[in-house]
Each structure stands twice: as C-alpha cells, then as structure tokens.
C-alpha cells in the first residue's frame, strides 16, 4: 500500500521523472521480492521479543515463580518491588519458600530488619554464574560484600537454580536466606556490656590518643563506613567498621585482658592513673587486629601486627570464632604476648631531624647517600665546619615505654681522618631565645666517632620514669669547640632498646 502512495506522488511530480526511470528495474525486482515473502513477517521474527522471560521484570518473575513467591511477597512488603521494576540491571539472590521459612526470626522481626534482609539479596548490575574469576565479591544493597564463589555459592547458601534472566536483570534461586551479618565493629559494640576490652574500645569514640585523631573524628561522616574514622582505633590501627576490607580481630576475654594489661602497665607510667590505664590498654589492643580474614585452619604460629609486634599463637586458646561481614573475630581465653616481643626498639633516623640549635647552617648540613664497605646504601646526616660549639640537632622519639633504654648509634665518620666526639641527650626543652638545649634529664657522655666505623656503637643508657603527652626530645650535640673537624656531627641512626624490668 505504501508503494502505491509513492507512485502517485511520483506521477504528479514531473521533476522526479528522471529518477523513476532510472530506478524502474530495481522497483520491479523489489515488488517481486515483496510478493514472495509477504506471507511471513521476517522483521517481526527477527527483532520482536519472543522470549517470554523478557516480558517480565525481576519483581514480576520472582513473584510469579512458585519456588520464590514468598520472597516476592517480601519484596512488595519492603518496597523493593518498585526498585526491581526499574529499568536498571540487577542481580537478585532469591531464597526458596522453604529457605525463607527457615530464616531466624530476629532477621525479620521489624520493618527495618526486613528491609535490610531484602537489601542483602539484591545487587546492582548482572552477575551471572559464568565468570573468569572463581570468587566474585559483590556489594549488595545492604552495603555488605558477599562472596559469589564458582557461580554456585553465595556466602553460605547454595545456588539451586542459576541465571534466570528477565527484562531488567537476572536472579539466582538459593537454598538459604542471606541474613545480613554484623561487621566486626558492630559485633564489638554489642559485646561492650559484658566484655572489658570491647568497652575500652568504645571509650575511644570520645578519647583521642593522639592529636591527629580529633581531626579524623571531626571529618567523620555519620552513616559512612569506609573512610569515616570516628574512633581513635580506626585512625591508628584499622577501621574495623569498613565493609570493603576484611580483618581478623582477636578479642580477649576479661581475664586474659586483665592479665595482658597488667603485664604492660609498669612500662606505661603516666602522670595520672587514668591515662596510664588508657594507654596501657591501647598498646595491648593495637596488636590484636590484622588485615585480611584468616580462617582458623590457616592461622600461622605467629602473626606480626601493623606495629611490628610478634603475636605468638601456638599457646593461644580460641574460645569462640565468629564469622562477620568484614572478617572474623576470635574470642580468646588465652593470648599471651611476651614483653620481649611487645616492647619495640625505637629507631631514629639521622637524616630526619625536626630542628637545629640555629637555622643558618644549612650550607654546612649534608644529607648524604652513601654505601658502606659491603655496598649497602644508607642515608645519613653530617654537619661539618659550622664553627659553633655544641651545635645541636633535634629529634623526636614517640611511643617510648617507661623503662631503661640502652642506646646505640651508627655514626659514619668517612670524610675526615681524625676522631671527633658528639653526645646524645634525652628530654629537656629548646631555649626559645638561642635555640640551645636546656635541662635534659639524661645526658650520655661525649663519645668518640672513629673514622670509617660502620658498626653500631653502644653509647650508654637512660631511664624514662614517666611519660608526658608529647614526644621525647632527643638531641645530638657537637663538641664544645669552634674548630672545624672537631665539632663535626654525623648520624645514620640512633637505636633505643628497651630493657625488661
């Protein structure tokens, strides 16, 4: 019919006559073709939607499937029916009716809980059972991450019927409801009433261990989990409230928590009893969180904490193991970290001073990069020919323990042939008038720096009785001489080794 209309149109338009003449043959051919094939509708066959699966959206398909109709009702109840009718692409893990009936009551106790429960079954974009990876980590609408393993397992549920596709995504039918788990931090929060260690960690919501904590807390956003460092433990150790990572956390029961803190307490002496306790607890708990979830059967003999403390696990006793959404918590009835490994050696790098007794000697201050006779490269500092008696370089030492320290240095005297002397002092303050060191509580003796000595040299010991809030001032002081070559300073590093009382 359309063709006739065209022909009429052409007839009454003489300027187009030429083109009609030219195309006459093709037109004839076209007519013939049309005559041959007009019985069927090839384009309709080709482009039409004939797959009945694709006429339904996810919400309709799940509700109409007799296996998952109960979950379909839950979708409608929580409002997810409208979400799953949208034209985005989703993946739904729909539990069977039997599985839904078996879900623990608390998971569906309130409207809020139901919503979270449903959200934990729905993810944006399509995840089919066919994937190149054996494990796909899927972020659900609940913000929890679930592991989709080998295309046939999600968390601890088996996929019964995979890859049912619909117009806006696909759904897998699973044999178990995916009740959303708490994360490690939510678990700790729930334990706070009965567990001392949990209670202490909650205290760190308000208490700032270091000045930087308050900045992180001020920037924390309610509702955010990944980057919101609302607790001092998150800032300084790991953010156990972060769903995107996995952690292993050892929670001590009350008895062993007391045992551990009591052992450390003498080394954490502060002005007030309260702050001694709070820092003792921190230095005990900071070594108990580890990155990555480690399954019980894979726990090694020793774990090394973020701070370098070796935590021995051979003698430890696990009372309970709780799988959580972002890792695993082991409740320990015994986990003893001996002081030998708990107390860390502090190393101060010579090339990282925070100040000098006077600031006009930059031209005499050499930040060097050298190699020792074995060819190992080291960075150090040297101040030479400055003409200032008792020129001083200042360093900070933080996180020291209240105990006696043995002090070693590695000081390289390689461009002079003479031996010179320098000394190290601890504590005191920098004079605001002339930048000199005032009233250090411990002053080690002037010690020779022999030429071309690349070994560590023991230079004495000092005892720290009580800790203040600030880092300890450590000073490296030149000889009391204005003579070049005699008042040289050099330092690769200082090593402060704590002694067990």
């Amino acid at each position: 019919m359309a063709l006739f209309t065209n022909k009429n149109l052409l007839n009454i338009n003489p300027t187009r006559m030429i083109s009609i003449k030219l195309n006459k043959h093709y037109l004839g051919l076209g007519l013939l073709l049309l005559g041959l094939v007009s019985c069927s509708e090839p384009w309709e066959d080709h482009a039409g939607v004939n797959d009945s699966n694709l006429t339904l959206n996810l919400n309709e398909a799940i509700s109409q499937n007799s296996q998952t109709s109960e979950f379909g009702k839950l979708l409608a109840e929580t409002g997810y029916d409208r979400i799953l009718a949208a034209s985005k692409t989703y993946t739904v893990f729909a539990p069977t009716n039997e599985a839904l009936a078996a879900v623990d009551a608390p998971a569906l106790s309130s409207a809020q809980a139901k919503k979270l429960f449903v959200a934990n079954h729905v993810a944006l974009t399509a995840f089919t059972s066919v994937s190149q990876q054996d494990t796909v980590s899927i972020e659900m609408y609940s913000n929890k991450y679930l592991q989709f393993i080998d295309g046939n397992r999600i968390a601890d549920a088996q996929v019964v019927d995979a890859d049912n596709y619909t117009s806006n995504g696909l759904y897998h039918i699973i044999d178990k409801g995916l009740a959303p788990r708490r994360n490690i931090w939510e678990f700790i929060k729930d334990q706070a009433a009965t567990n001392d260690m949990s209670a202490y960690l909650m205290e760190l919501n308000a208490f700032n261990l270091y000045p930087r904590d308050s900045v992180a807390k001020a920037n924390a956003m309610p509702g955010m989990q990944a980057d919101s460092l609302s607790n001092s433990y998150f800032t300084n150790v790991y953010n156990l409230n972060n769903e995107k990572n996995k952690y292993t956390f050892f929670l001590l029961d009350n008895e062993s928590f007391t045992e551990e803190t009591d052992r450390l307490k003498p080394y954490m002496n502060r002005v007030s009893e309260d702050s001694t306790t709070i820092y003792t607890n921190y230095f005990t708990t900071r070594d108990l969180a580890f990155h990555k979830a480690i399954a019980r059967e894979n726990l090694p003999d020793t774990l090394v904490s973020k701070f370098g403390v070796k935590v021995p696990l051979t003698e430890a006793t696990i009372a309970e193991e709780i799988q959580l959404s972002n890792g695993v918590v082991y409740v320990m009835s015994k986990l003893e970290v001996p002081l030998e490994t708990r107390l860390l050696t502090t190393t101060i790098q010579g090339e990282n001073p925070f100040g000098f007794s006077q600031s006009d000697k930059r031209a005499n201050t050499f930040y060097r990069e050298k190699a020792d006779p074995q060819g190992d490269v080291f960075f150090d500092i040297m101040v030479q020919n400055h003409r200032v008696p008792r020129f001083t370089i200042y360093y900070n030492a933080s996180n020291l323990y209240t105990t006696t320290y043995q002090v070693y240095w590695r000081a390289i005297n390689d461009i002079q042939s003479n031996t010179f002397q320098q000394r190290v002092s601890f504590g005191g303050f920098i004079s605001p008038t002339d930048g000199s060191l005032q009233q250090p509580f411990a002053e080690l003796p002037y010690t020779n720096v022999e030429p071309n000595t690349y070994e560590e040299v023991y230079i004495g010991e000092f005892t720290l009785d009580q800790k203040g809030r600030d880092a300890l001032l450590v000073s490296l002081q030149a000889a009391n001489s204005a003579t070049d070559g005699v008042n040289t300073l050099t330092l690769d590093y200082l090593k402060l080794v704590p002694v067990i009382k």
Partner: protein
Amino acid sequence: MPMKTFILTNKKKFILAGLAIALSVSSCQEYLDVEPQDKLNSDQVYRDVFDADAAIIGTYGKFMQLAEKYVLLNELRADLMATTRNSDPEMIALSEHAVTADNRYANPKDFYEVIQNCNDNLKNFDIMLAEKKFTQTEYNQRYSDIGALRTWVYLQLGIHYGSVPYITEPIENLDDVRDTALYPRIPFEELIDELVAFTEGFSYTSPYSTDSSLVINVDGYNTAKFFINKECLLGDLHLWDNNYTQAAIHYKNVMETGTMSGNDSERFDTYRVKFAEVATNNDLAVGYLRFREQDRLALIDNNSQGWRSMFARDRDVLWNTEWIWSLPFDSNFAPKNPFINLFSNQGGDYLVKPSQRAIDLWEDQTQRNGFPYDARGKRFSYNVIGGDEVIMKYLYKFLDPVTQTPIDLFQTDGEWFLYRAAKLHLRYAEAANRDNQSRIADALLNFGIQSEYTVPGVTDKTDIEQTFEPFPYNFDARAGDFPRFRADWHRNGGIRGRAYVERAEVVGDSVISIENNLIEEAALELAYEGNRWGDLVRIALRRNDPSFLADRIYEKLNAEGNAQAGSVRTKLMVRENWYLPFVWNEEE
C-alpha cells in the same frame, strides 16, 4: 517552482557547453592553465642559491621525520631502553628481537624517502652549477652537506638492515627500491667502502661558513648547528671501517674547532669537554654547591647549570661548546616532536623507559664524593615521576623543572640530539686506543689530558702536561704560572671527570679493557641519544665476537625476568639475526 528550476538549470548547461566548445576551439590554452598558489612547479625551484637553500631546509625537514625511528631502533633494540605497560606489540618485538616483516618500525621506506630527496637535491645542484646558477663555493658547501646527510642515512640503514641497495640517483617510483634486480643489495662492508669513497671526495668538509645564507637566525633559532658535521661523519665512517688513524684525524679536526679563535673561552671550551666550574657551577658538569659536595640536596640540578642543562638550555655560548649537531622541534612548526609522546607519562603515552640494566649501570658507579651512584642516571637521564621511571633528556623543555608536570601541554618544544662533544671524545678515544694511543684514550675518558700527563709537585710546566705526539695525537694541556702557560687543552677535564665519577679501572689487556670502558661510558653519558645499538654492533664486528652484543641484550631481558632472554641471546649469536627485514608494503 521545481519545474522552473529544472528548465533554468538546463539552460545554464547549454550555455556552459557552448562556452566550453568555444574555449576549446580557441587556442588560448593559458586561460585554463592556472598555476597553483601553494605549490611549486619544477621550473620554479633550483633557480638560484636561495632556492637551493630552501631545498636543503626541505630535505632536513623530511629528515627530521626519522627522529623517532632513529631513537627507537638504536635504543630499544639495544640494552638501555625497555618497553612499558603501554608499549604496543611492535615495540615489544623490537625489544625482544622478534621483528616481523609487517612491523612498522622495520619499514625502511622512510629512510629512502630522505635519500630520494637528497638525490634530487644533488642532481639539481649539478645542473645549477653547470648552468652557473650559483658559484662553485656555494655548490661545494651545499653538495657536501646533502651528500653527507645521505651518507648518514645510508650508514643507519647499513647498521640496521645489513645489506641495502645503494642508490645515488633520483628514481621514478620509490617502491622500486625493493626490486633486487633493479637495485641489488650490497653488504655492509661494501656499503661502508662506497660511503667512505663518496664522502672523502668532498672538496668542502667544514660547517657552513658563517657568512653563508644558510647560517641565520630564524624563529629564534640559530641554524648553524642544524646541519650535519661532515668531519664527524667521516670519522664515524672510518671508525666503522677500522681505519683508526683516518678516523682520529677527522675527529681531531672537529676537536680543534676553537683552536684558531681569538676569543679565549671559545678557544679553550669549544668541544674540549671542559672541567667543572666549582665556584659558579656555570658549566655542563655534574656538580654540587661548593663545599657542600657531601650534601645530596646540593646537587646542581636545574635547566641553566650543570650536566642536565645541556639538554635544557637555549643555544647559548655554553650550549655551543658541547653541541655539534642538534635539530629543534618547535610546537609552532611541523614536524611534531615525537619524543613527548614516546617518553612522558604526562601529556604523552610513556611507551618506553630505562631498562633495569641501564639503571644498574648507573647505580654501579661511585661519585667522587663517595655517593654510590652516577648522578647522570637517576638524577638526570631518568627520573621517577609518579612511580614511573621516565627518560628525561628529551623532556626538560616540556616539564616544569620543579613540579615535573607539563608547563603547557601544547608547548612541545624539544630537540633531536645528534652529535656532541662527549660523543666526539669517546669516538676519538676509541680510534686512538686501537691506534696504539691507549694512554690518550684513557685520559680523555677519565680525568683529562692534564691530569694524566702532569707531574705532581712540578711548578715549571714547560716539559710536562702534553703528549708530544704528532697530529692527530697532539695535545697540549699546560696550565702553569711560572712560566705562564694556558695551552689549548688546559681545561679538558675528561668525560668521567666532568661527570664527577671515579675513574674507570683498566683490567687485563689494556686495549680491550679501555675499549670496554669507552663503550660503557657511552652508555652512561649518551644513553637514549641513539648511539647504543651502533656501538654494540661496531665492537662486535671489530672483535668478530657476536657475544659482545648478544650478552648485553640478554642481560637487559634477563634483568626484566623475560623468559625469552636465553633464546634471544642464542639468536643474536648469529650476525644475520641482528638485522631487520628489508621489506615494505605498497600502500604504506
């Protein structure tokens, strides 16, 4: 309305047809023969010396399109440059010596396009001279320039393809070059002989005279160093021919460029690899602020002082003491600078990087202040930017000296570095070393003539600090006050002296050991300037020892954990496998 238009159009057609007939009948052919305004006809070129100059500039413009290929073929195939995560399979094939016929970097056509241009220039220069369109002097200078440029291109072809057709006349169809019946391919040794014979025939081998119409200031550039240095080329050819005395003679001619100058700094500094100016740091040496040599933060690391500045500074007095041949890329003119894209990881594709082997070479050196590396490596030749090792020599004009981010993405000025004094000294030393002058070679490589020939404690320098050899091995480096001497070579500080590294030790046979030192020094000093592959091939040929080349490529690939390292070494132990396939496709 349409009807009317139809008739009108037809009417017009008739009128046009009529006009056409009328025109074709009438004999005024010139009427339609309009000359294009943006193209030249053959009778509009080669009319006078200025046309000849324009043709030369045109050929050099064409020549600059070889820049990227030159650097890639000579460096990526050798051991100092490696591929990155962004490199395409054809680059990886270059690096792994698995080049197939369809690899675009292996296509020799670009080289022959330049040769074709040169041949056309040379033929027309002959015609111009015959028709007296320019003088004999003008002819000599221009003919030898383009002739030398063609020779340079052939030398590159020989290095990379082994046997190539040697064509010296313009040809109708460039694709015929592939036809071995028309243009037989001659082996490398024969090619070198041809090139020596041709180039030695020049009656003019100096740079263009300063009053030449080609030596001008244009768009802020002085053109004097745009043109190939014929004496350097002659030295290179003789060095490839193992004709050491001749090579030394030609190199020495260039080294003495400043000798006749009345200007002291020109006389003492030009191409003599001058020692460091420790007080002012206004030099081309690796140096530190004075009395702060122990402070790594006091390294002279900016675009106007020290070793780095030779790649960054304008064509000023100091630049002219080092650079012999260098062509600028300017963002305002074609051709486009290819090196930003090749090297930069900001505003570029970061296609190549320093190999681990090159990095290790620099790290194995010791500076004279005890620092366990060569600053020419990680401080200057490459930097770590954003976690990537980035080759820096070509990027100093593109990246901000402090922030190391592009100053302006569209400001892509740069240079094609082709010849400089350090390379000249190393090549001269290579010839001298093989010509029984190892002591001179070792002196130029390390701390200079004066340091080698002086006698400690002697104030009267009359009879010391000089070589007492005839040309080309005559050096006088005397600097004394009683009596006073300031000889031509007294400021020569040696390559390693200028680079502030400890001397290279001679172990075992001194000739072989010094030659090894010279080639390694070329790696440290000239990395990524397009010399490495040629150096390896030349020494491997001279010693008839393919392992000299194969071992180094093996070490590069092995250091990267490339599983092919062993098989590549086996392959390169056969000389035929050093060469690229000589093929190109019609449509390219």
